[in-house]
C-alpha cells in the first residue's frame, strides 16, 4: 500500500492511498485503503496522515483520524503517531501496522507495531527523496 501526504507550495494539504489489498482475501473483502480516517486523513488547519498494515484491524480504530485530531489537540507528529498505534496494540498486541504523520508546517514522524517500517520524504531542503526507518 502507498499512502501519501503532500503539502503544496500554498501550504495546502492532500492525502491519498492506493492498494490492491491482502493476498488470498475472501472475494468482496475490502481493507482500510479506501476508508477516510483509517489509511489516510487530512485537515489543512492541522496536518495529514498516511497508514499501512492489517486493514481488517486498523479499520476499526481509524488511526489517521486519531493522529490528526491528536495534532489538533497540540501533540507533535511523533507523539500523535505513537499514540494512535498504541491504542490499537493495546487491544490487538499481535497486529502489524504503521502510521506516518505530518503537521501543517511539514514536520513529520512515523510509528509502527509488529514490524519495522520505512517512510519516504522529499522537501525543499533535500536534494532527493530520503527514507526514514522506524522501529516498533
Amino acid at each position, binding site marked *: 500500500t*502507498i499512502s501519501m501526504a503532500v503539502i503544496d507550495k500554498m501550504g495546502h494539504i492532500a492525502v491519498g492511498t492506493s492498494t490492491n489489498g491482502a493476498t488470498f482475501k475472501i472475494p468482496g473483502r475490502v481493507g482500510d485503503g479506501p476508508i477516510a480516517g483509517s489509511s489516510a486523513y487530512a485537515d489543512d488547519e492541522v496536518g495529514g496522515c498516511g497508514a499501512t498494515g492489517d486493514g481488517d484491524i486498523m479499520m476499526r480504530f481509524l488511526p489517521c483520524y486519531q493522529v490528526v485530531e491528536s495534532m489538533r489537540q497540540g501533540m507533535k507528529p511523533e507523539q500523535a503517531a505513537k499514540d494512535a498505534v498504541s491504542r490499537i496494540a493495546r487491544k490487538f498486541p499481535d497486529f502489524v501496522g504503521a502510521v506516518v504523520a505530518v503537521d501543517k508546517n511539514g514536520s513529520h514522524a512515523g510509528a509502527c507495531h509488529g514490524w519495522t517500517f*520505512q517512510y519516504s520524504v522529499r522537501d525543499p531542503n533535500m536534494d532527493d527523496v530520503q527514507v526514514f526507518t522506524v522501529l516498533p
Partner: protein
Amino acid sequence: MARSYLSIILSTLLLFLPLLTAAEAELGKPKKFPVVVSTWPFIEAVRAAWRVANNGSSAVEAVVEGCSACEELRCDGTVGPGGSPNENGETMLDALIMDGVTMEVGAVAAMRYVKDGIRAAWLVMKHSQHTLLAGEGASAFAISMGLPGPMNLSSPESLKKWLDWKENRCQPNFRKNVVPANGCGPYKPKHGGMDVSTESCEMGTIEYRLPPLVGPHNHD
C-alpha cells in the same frame, strides 16, 4: 519645491523599508514547502509527486501523480494491478483521495477491471457527491468518466502465486470457524451455522491471532 520632493521620496522609502526587510527575511528563511511524505521507500512515487508539487501544482494533483506512479510501477506488489490475488485469483483495487482544504473525499473499493485506482478515486471526488463507490459499480463509473477498461488486472506473477496457493489446499487463508479447515472449500460454518444463540454469554475476550498471511508483503 525641491524640499517637498525630497520629503515625498523619504516618506515613500520609509513606507517600503519594512516591506523590503520582511521580503528579504522571507527569502533568507529556508523554504518549508512543498513537502511529500509517503509510506515505504517508494522513491519513484515520491519523486513523481515532488515534480508536480514543486512545479506549483496543487497537493491533490501531486497525490494523484505520486500514487499513479506507484500503481504503474506496482511498487512492492501491494499497489496497482497484477498483485494480491483473492481466493478466485482476481486482483481488485482500493484507493482514496482527500483534499484537506475542502475535506472532500473520493474513494473506490474492490474495484474490478480498471487499473487506475487513484484516478478513479479522484473522479469520484470530482464528479459525484458520494464518498465511496465499490465493486463493479465503481468500475462502471470510472469507465464512464473516461478511464480505460474493462481489462484483466491479473498478471502472470499473481496467477502463478494463486495456482501455487490452490495446490497447497488454499492454505493459509482468512476463513474462521469453518469446515473444511484445511481445504479449498466450499466452506460451511463449523457449528450450528446461523444459530446466533451459540454466542456465549460470558465476558468475551479479544481473540485475535495475526493471520499468517498478513505481513510486510501482504497488507493494506
